[in-house]
């Protein structure tokens, strides 16, 4: 135990003495948070909207007026027939088509519910997803008894298919994409910084030869590893804290769930990342190699985390692969806790998987760390 304290003490001294490192650890992530969350937005404006009104009732007119009033939609025109409308979509004249059937008002009053046809031009998949959500929300706000039947066309030979709306967006009622992106980007920062720092740190000692000096001492390898990784665990938690404060102050992101719950999850999540960093450093000889390998994994993890592209829109095999992606679990948890106010039982599956991941990763890392080669 005392030995571990000596290592931790030394590690902190070195980190805080390194004038070039502190800004990298804390200032760079903050800048990234600000830049990325402003740049990486899915917000779609000026959606070209067309409609077919077969009902010509006051309800149908009111519904169209709702779209007209929304700043996201530009109501282009109305089409007398489905044929004309669908060729307009194919030409790209309109992005979203609303089809109000005959007797819409009458049936709605009689049955207390009704169905509306929505066709979305899905050539740009990401935009279509967003449009889908806008439409659904507008209609539901207009009348909660309406069910949307959605068709996406991206090609005239593709059969229209009914798709479900992406439920995550529902929790972002203001349709503010920063609210949606900032928590995810925070995950990205915590992951990148802790992985790079931990991975490079031990390789650095290999490079300068001090690791060999440590290996000729009788220190136990788990003492060394705990002492070495603990400071980066603290830094990771510190980064989360800084990020959360910024999210609140700069972006005014709500925090609906429990803060301790998020910290509990993060504290385990960082162990996964640290184990990975150590594992990488065990198999590399230079900081450069460690950096390349870390990048390789970070890029894959982030692209497949559902942070920038929804996992639902990935091919099936890729969706299965994301099961092995710890970043995905964290992105889900942070969005759930911050934006939906999910509780312990909601995130329990992710928490368990992450814990298992941490055990395996650190087991591998400790096993592959050899004092004798």
């Amino acid at each position, binding site marked *: 135990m*005392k*030995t571990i*304290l*000596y*290592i931790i*003490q*030394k590690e902190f*001294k*070195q980190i805080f*003495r*390194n004038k070039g490192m502190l800004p990298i650890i804390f200032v760079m992530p903050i800048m990234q948070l600000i830049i990325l969350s402003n740049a990486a937005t899915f917000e779609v404006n000026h959606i070209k909207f067309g409609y077919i009104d077969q009902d010509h009732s006051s309800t149908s007119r009111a519904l169209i007026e709702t779209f007209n009033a929304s700043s996201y939609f530009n109501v282009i025109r109305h089409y007398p027939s489905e044929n004309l409308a669908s060729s307009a979509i194919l030409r790209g004249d309109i992005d979203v088509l609303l089809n109000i059937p005959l007797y819409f008002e009458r049936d709605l009053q009689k049955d207390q519910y009704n169905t509306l046809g929505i066709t979305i031009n899905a050539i740009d998949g990401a935009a279509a997803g967003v449009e889908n959500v806008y439409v659904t929300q507008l209609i539901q706000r207009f009348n909660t008894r309406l069910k949307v039947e959605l068709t996406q066309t991206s090609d005239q030979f593709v059969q229209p298919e009914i798709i479900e709306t992406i439920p995550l967006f529902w929790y972002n009622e203001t349709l503010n994409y920063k609210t949606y992106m900032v928590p995810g980007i925070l995950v990205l920062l915590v992951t990148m910084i802790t992985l790079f720092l931990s991975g490079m740190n031990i390789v650095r000692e290999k490079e*300068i*030869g*001090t690791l*060999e*000096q*440590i*290996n*000729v*001492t*009788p*220190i136990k390898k788990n003492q060394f590893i705990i002492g070495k990784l603990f400071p980066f665990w603290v830094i990771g938690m510190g980064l989360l804290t800084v990020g959360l404060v910024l999210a609140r102050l700069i972006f005014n992101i709500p925090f609906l769930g429990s803060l301790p719950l998020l910290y509990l999850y993060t504290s385990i999540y960082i162990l996964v990342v640290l184990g990975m960093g150590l594992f990488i450093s065990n198999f590399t000889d230079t900081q450069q190699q460690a950096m390349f390998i870390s990048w390789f994994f970070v890029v894959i993890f982030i692209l497949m985390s559902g942070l920038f592209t929804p996992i639902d829109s990935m091919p099936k095999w890729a969706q299965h692969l994301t099961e092995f992606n710890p970043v995905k679990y964290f992105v889900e948890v942070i969005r759930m806790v911050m934006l939906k106010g999910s509780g312990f039982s909601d995130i329990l599956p992710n928490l368990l998987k992450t814990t298992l991941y941490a055990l395996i990763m650190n087991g591998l890392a400790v096993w592959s760390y050899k*004092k*004798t*080669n």
Partner: protein
Amino acid sequence: MSNENVIQVERLTKTFGNFTAVNAISFEVKKGEIFGFLGANGAGKTTAMKMLIGISKPTSGEATIAGFDVYKHAEDIKKNIGYMSQKFALYDDLTVKENIAFFGGIYGLSRKIIKEKSKHLIEELGLVDVANKLVGALPLGWKQKLSFSVSLLHNPKIVFLDEPTGGVDPITRRQFWEMIYKAANQGTTVFVTTHYMDEAEYCDRVSIMVNGKIEALDTPKKLKAQFKVEHMNDVFLKLARHTE
């Protein structure tokens, strides 16, 4: 010097692929002895030493260090030895005091003992003025002396020095050897590699390694007699030429 063998090596071998870096070397070192481990660049000295200190697994052969087997009890060996690597391996970004405290701590010394030793050592090395300076800023000779002292912090039975005086000026080298003598007088066995033939003369016994094999091993006096030369340098040259 007693008759007790603290290092016993039997046909110790290390290969990297098909290249044999250390080829079946055998020797023993007695307690309190200063044992010079000589050889040209690439002869295999560092490789051999790393097997003896338990950070590199031998390919074959036997070695017992301070009574412990290198295969089975590497960690016990580590408690009983000090090591100063060929590459300077203290932390450049820690101060003199911090380096001493850190390595003392890792070896499990109590805070009180670390404090005492640190004070004593800093005075003895004349580092009082720079005790709170980063080690990276010190001249090489000072670093090497500090590094040697740190390797002795936990009073090891044997200390392994890999080219401790490489690139150091003659006066500092002289002082360094005084430190080695002092350690040996206190009963520490010193296992040292060097390229300087005058230093070979200071050793109780020397071995000369050529291409992974030990080609000669005896006291400097006997080696000179055996090769009928005046200086260790000539012994070295004759051996190298002979095996070429």
